[in-house]
């Protein structure tokens, strides 16, 4: 167990150091997000503003699309530089490779989102200040969820002949379930008192339920992916 986690951290550390040297991917993701904001603004802005719940939902849609394009290199770069075999044949458990990549994906996306959230909240006109603690919790769980899904999707593109083209196809079905939950919870934070809850449940109960489902989803995706990763990494 200890060697598994230390291997995972070593892999994550390697990727993070490379990212800090090149900075390319993080910067590209950030620019892509801004482009998406502008593109969406043409569709959504009416009367100079966007409704708060729509704007906050767009934040997650943009993060989702950023992942579609930012998580593909997680394994693609290993394949291109020829180091994928090294990872596959190293004397470490396969789940450790997966865990390391998830941590890296989380850090990569996290770095971009830290800058992105304040900018988008100003541009799209919504505020997370009504419940900052929950916002941070949701951001952390959400980005971890997307990183978990993105790393798995990246690994799955390896045997394909058109790796980059096929990545969105693999990423979408697995990430959408998380996306739906994230948008719902974020809407509740942003609407504040206006949020009514679902059915017979009150607003606080609804948010707690959704957050629990989100956590369950994260744990399910991580466990499922880590268990089958052994098959995804065969040399």
């Amino acid at each position, binding site marked *: 167990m200890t060697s598994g986690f230390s291997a995972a951290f070593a892999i994550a550390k390697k990727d993070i150091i490379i990212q800090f040297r090149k900075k390319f991917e993080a910067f590209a993701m950030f620019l892509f997000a801004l482009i998406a904001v502008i593109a969406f603004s043409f569709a959504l802005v009416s009367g100079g503003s966007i409704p708060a719940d729509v704007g906050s939902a767009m934040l997650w849609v943009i993060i989702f699309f950023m992942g579609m394009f930012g998580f593909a290199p997680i394994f693609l770069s290993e394949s291109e530089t020829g180091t994928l075999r090294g990872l596959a044949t190293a004397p470490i458990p396969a789940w450790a490779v997966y865990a390391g990549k998830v941590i890296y994906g989380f850090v990569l996306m996290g770095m971009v989102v830290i800058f992105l959230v304040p900018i988008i909240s100003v541009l799209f006109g919504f505020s997370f200040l009504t419940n900052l603690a929950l916002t941070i919790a949701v951001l952390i769980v959400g980005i971890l969820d997307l990183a978990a899904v993105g790393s*798995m999707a990246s690994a*799955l593109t*390896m*045997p*394909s*002949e*058109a790796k980059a*083209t*096929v990545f969105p*196809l*693999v990423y*979408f*079905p*697995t990430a*959408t*379930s998380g996306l*739906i939950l994230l948008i719902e919870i974020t809407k509740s934070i942003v609407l504040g008192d206006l949020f009514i809850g*679902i*059915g017979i449940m009150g607003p606080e109960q609804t948010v707690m*339920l959704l957050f629990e*489902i989100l956590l369950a*989803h994260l744990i*399910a*995706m991580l466990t*499922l*992916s880590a268990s*089958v990763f052994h*098959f*995804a990494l*065969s040399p």
Partner: protein
Amino acid sequence: MAVSKNRLIFLGITAAISLLYVYMTWIFSPPDAVLGENVRIFFQHVAPALVAYGLFGGTLLCGLLYLWKGDLKYDILGAVSIKLGLLFTTITLLSGMMWANAAWHSPWNWDPRETTTLILWVAYACILAYRSSVSDREARAQFGSIFGIVAFPMVILSYFSIIIWDTIHPRVITESGLQMEVEHMMTLFVAMIAVTMIALIMVDLTYKVDSAYEKLMRIRMSRS
């Protein structure tokens, strides 16, 4: 090629039950108090929906079996499950749109149940597209199985969306039992049996065709 006796019997029973189903849908079931004659689309919507979920469950099972045993037969069956699951989801969506148009005068309402079923359709279409991009047979089976397994939580979310979200989608099966007239209940029961049996026949036939095709490909490859 002669069809085996058991298969013929199964085919015969399916034909009989299907005829019964048609009779029950059109003649036996009374018009609904609210929907009128339009209630008849209900049976052709619910049965394929549940069969589609079953087939996606079959995909998960075949994926797990392939990873465990390594026999390509499981992968062929898994691919058949996805294709037919897609077909039945299409039927579900189309019949659902017909019903929505009849009941609420708008074929698509972005109701969570409708939306998650659409997402399910796209998800499984993505699996098929992904599979066709992998040319190595064993790699396709291995990675296709993993993808099928990892995509399954979407099915679970789709199933529970009707419970979690406030939806206009009618909830027919509640804690107090089935909420509809007796004739409709009976027709639905027969519909389920008929559509399930038809689906099983289709799975069997498609599996045979796909297996034969693969065998043919292997013979061609070994000869060239």
